[in-house]
């Protein structure tokens, strides 16, 4: 079986190798050797106190290899891309000593976490170059799930994430029903490089910059945890829990493992009540999914985690080749005796619907190309106002011909219906994709934490250009 495997690797790796600069000792067409998937380091807890996680995070400009053999100027958290993973438990007190060693202002936004406004890392709380800031918050009970962190300075989110600033957050529950299942973290990202190895972030008002603005910037090199086409080993019969973070600026991934059924078990805000069998999962920019992958393949064979084509684009700037699938990593079924399959619980946890009889307001959010409710972001303007304790429905309408993933800071929500079709089960999300010319309604409860919270399109080029608004919770 060795020869077919080698051929397969050659085929899948060759396009990526062609798309990027070659290192000096690498001949044309020579594939990059498949490496096992590695996970980013976990931020070291400097606290000995129970229930406290105290870590140090430094953003700095550095030079490293994102593509093997090619040196690139990047921004990195603690010197790595992706940044180290923040692992915490529900109820933990978290203290993050953040230092900005970048040559520009930044923030750290704890995407999806329900924490005080002052710690949200939104454009309202910039950390100047050379300055430090201590983020302090408590992880709410019931919020176990997969989150991520990234910069969010006004107008500069897209380029700073493009340069390498993103990392994962895992919130664990004491009573995690899947704790016996081995897990993997998969942070998906893409990037684009110039011939000299530098990251290609063109000016907005250039032809390529204009296309990047329309589509959201996509890269032709696809990374999983910063690796290109790595390999995950899986024993026959084994079950793995994959926590998948879409850290791409714009790219949506339609994930599938050809010929294999996936069990979709969680979304942005953690586990569903019941596993949902599916052949594919669409994950918009900034969304997370949790899925169970079962070792159903023959020992010694391989398959791939594939990103199937998905047309999220307007025709004007739809990229050539959008209809081609992309392979993200190799799944190698270990050439070893099958293991006894573990029992997958049919009920993961209770996920109650929010009480929609308490809804007092329905807010309409109209998404167009670069605007929300036909206005561009203004930091001096409050677009929406609500009061603590309010339950609301947000009706998000996309009027244009491409998808927009809509993100609300600070408060997770439950999708009620999409184009009038009721959602089949309750789940927690902080980002929802709103496809072209369609409408999504979600219910959200503003329990605590007053402040000025952002809502925006999570295509980062749209967000940075002003497709964002401010909700003041009083």
């Amino acid at each position, binding site marked *: 079986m060795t020869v077919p495997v080698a051929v397969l690797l050659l085929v899948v790796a060759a396009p990526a190798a062609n798309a990027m600069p070659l290192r000096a000792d690498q001949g044309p067409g020579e594939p990059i050797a498949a490496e096992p998937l590695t996970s980013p380091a976990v931020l070291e807890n400097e606290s000995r106190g129970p229930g406290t996680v105290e870590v140090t995070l430094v953003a700095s400009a550095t030079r490293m290899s994102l593509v093997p053999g090619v040196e690139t100027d990047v921004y990195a958290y603690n010197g790595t891309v992706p940044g180290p993973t923040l692992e915490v438990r529900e109820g933990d007190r978290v203290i993050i000593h953040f230092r900005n060693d970048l040559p520009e202002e930044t923030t750290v936004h704890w995407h999806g976490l329900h924490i005080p406004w002052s710690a949200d890392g939104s454009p309202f709380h910039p950390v100047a170059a050379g300055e430090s800031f201590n983020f302090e918050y408590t992880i709410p009970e019931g919020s176990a799930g997969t989150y991520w962190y990234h910069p969010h300075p006004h107008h500069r989110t897209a380029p700073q994430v493009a340069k390498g600033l993103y990392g994962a957050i895992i919130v664990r529950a004491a009573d995690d029903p899947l704790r016996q299942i081995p897990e993997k973290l998969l942070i998906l990202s893409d990037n684009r490089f110039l011939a000299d190895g530098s990251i290609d972030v063109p000016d907005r008002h250039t032809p390529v910059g204009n296309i990047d603005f329309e589509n959201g910037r996509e890269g032709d090199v696809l990374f999983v945890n910063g690796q290109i086409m790595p390999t995950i080993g899986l024993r026959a019969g084994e079950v793995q829990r994959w926590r998948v973070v879409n850290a791409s600026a714009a790219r949506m991934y339609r994930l599938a493992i050809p010929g294999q059924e996936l069990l979709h078990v969680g979304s942005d805000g953690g586990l569903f009540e019941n596993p949902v069998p599916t052949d594919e999962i669409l994950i918009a920019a900034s969304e997370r999914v949790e899925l169970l992958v079962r070792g159903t393949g023959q020992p010694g064979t391989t398959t791939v985690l594939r990103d199937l084509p998905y047309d999220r684009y307007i025709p004007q700037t739809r990229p050539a080749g959008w209809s081609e699938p992309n392979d993200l990593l190799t799944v190698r079924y270990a050439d070893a005796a099958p293991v006894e399959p573990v029992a997958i619980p049919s009920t993961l946890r209770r996920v109650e619907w929010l009480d929609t009889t308490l809804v007092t307001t329905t807010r309409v959010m109209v998404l167009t*190309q670069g605007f929300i409710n*036909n206005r561009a972001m203004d930091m001096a303007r409050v677009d929406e106002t609500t009061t603590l304790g309010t339950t609301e429905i947000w009706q998000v309408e996309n009027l*244009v011909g491409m998808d927009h993933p809509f993100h609300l800071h600070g408060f997770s929500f439950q999708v009620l219906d999409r184009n009038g079709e009721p959602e089949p089960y309750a789940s927690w999300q902080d980002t929802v994709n709103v496809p072209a010319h369609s409408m999504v309604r979600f219910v959200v409860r503003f329990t605590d934490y007053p402040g000025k919270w952002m809502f925006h399109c999570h295509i980062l080029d749209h967000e940075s250009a002003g497709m964002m608004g401010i909700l003041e919770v009083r």
Partner: protein
Amino acid sequence: MRGKGTGAALRFAIILMLAVATSALVSAYTQRPDPDLSATRLSVHEQAEQEQIMRGRQLVLEHACSGCHGGSLTPDGPAWLMGLTESLPGNEFLIGPCVMEQGAQPCFRTRPRNLTPDNLTGLGRFSERQIFNALRYGLRPGETPDVEITSTPGQGNFPASPKYLAPPMPWVAWRYMPDDDLWAIAAYLKRGVKPVRNVVEDSEGPPDFWVESYTDFLAANPRPVPPFPAAAERTPASGSVDMDQVLRGRQVAVQHDCGACHGGFSNPDAPGYLAGVGISPNAIEFPAGPLTEPPLSGPCSVQAAGVACWMMRPRNLTPHATGIGGYTDRQLFNALRYGLRPSTTPDIEIKSTGPGQGNFPAEPDHLGIGMPWPAWRYMSDDDLWALIAYLRHGLKPVDNEVAASEAPPDLWAGVYTVENIGPYPAPAFPTANEVGGRK
């Protein structure tokens, strides 16, 4: 290379739009009773709103919006203004060199949008100011914020990367309309039309959203138009001519884009302005008929053997003997209101509305396809007489003999039936596709 292609595309797109506008074949007309507006006493505000909506309706009719955006030419027909539908697939346009040469690249498909006030698929969530900005500046509502534009491209708050409507949309002519008229159109579309849910796939186009095409065009066709008299114009001998009427006629000619086919677009300084085929580079002959091949311009020889094809040649509209000089004002009025060829229609006042009635010619000889008289006929009498006064007295005569357009044996009478082009006058407001306009 692309700029040249899309520039040509712009020219042909406008011609194509006009051709489609006049040849839209629609289903039967059903007369509906007038609503008894007098039964309700309207406040001054309501009355003003009603008048604005009715003015907008008139402008939508006389500018043939539905010729591309769906349905019949009158508001009582099906699919009124709801954009590209499966029942009207012909309203998807090709833009680019492929219009002239089959298979040439680039080739973009553009699709008329849903203009009804449906929230998700039409104009419902756009403000009237955004509709105004679309008509005045060509800025796509979905890609332009709801702000008052106070500058020109490249300056002030005009979008740094403007997103222009695709070339078939004749905003380059519509932008000459007075503010009040543009607001009236916006009012009618938002408050006078019933919302219809109809998703229209986005148009294709160059990644720069036509900026390159429009930059040169807008420079060559400034707004406002040059002061009267421009190069193609003359000051009438004083005394006999009502100058206000001539200037109103000039405005009508500009905003109805007569120059798109007859020469010089909307610029009376342009060589060959309204002088017909042969002088202005944009006054060209084009084929008409039940064409089968994608290229809708160029000679009939590109058509499949046996397919009817006639060459249309926009005429010389200047007051020279080779132009309109030999016709009476009333013959020109009958051409604009009823589509009757001046050269073959007697100089009589027509007192009936269509063939087979009163003194309407029993065997009418109609202007060729391309001349959008089925829409122009909804202009007020005053505007038609003003347009004629302008052509007669405000334009310099230009000696330019244009060969007659070709025509089928029935001289288009089979096309221009009430069933196809709707009634004149237009059915009373509101039809089943419209709403009363009173809140």
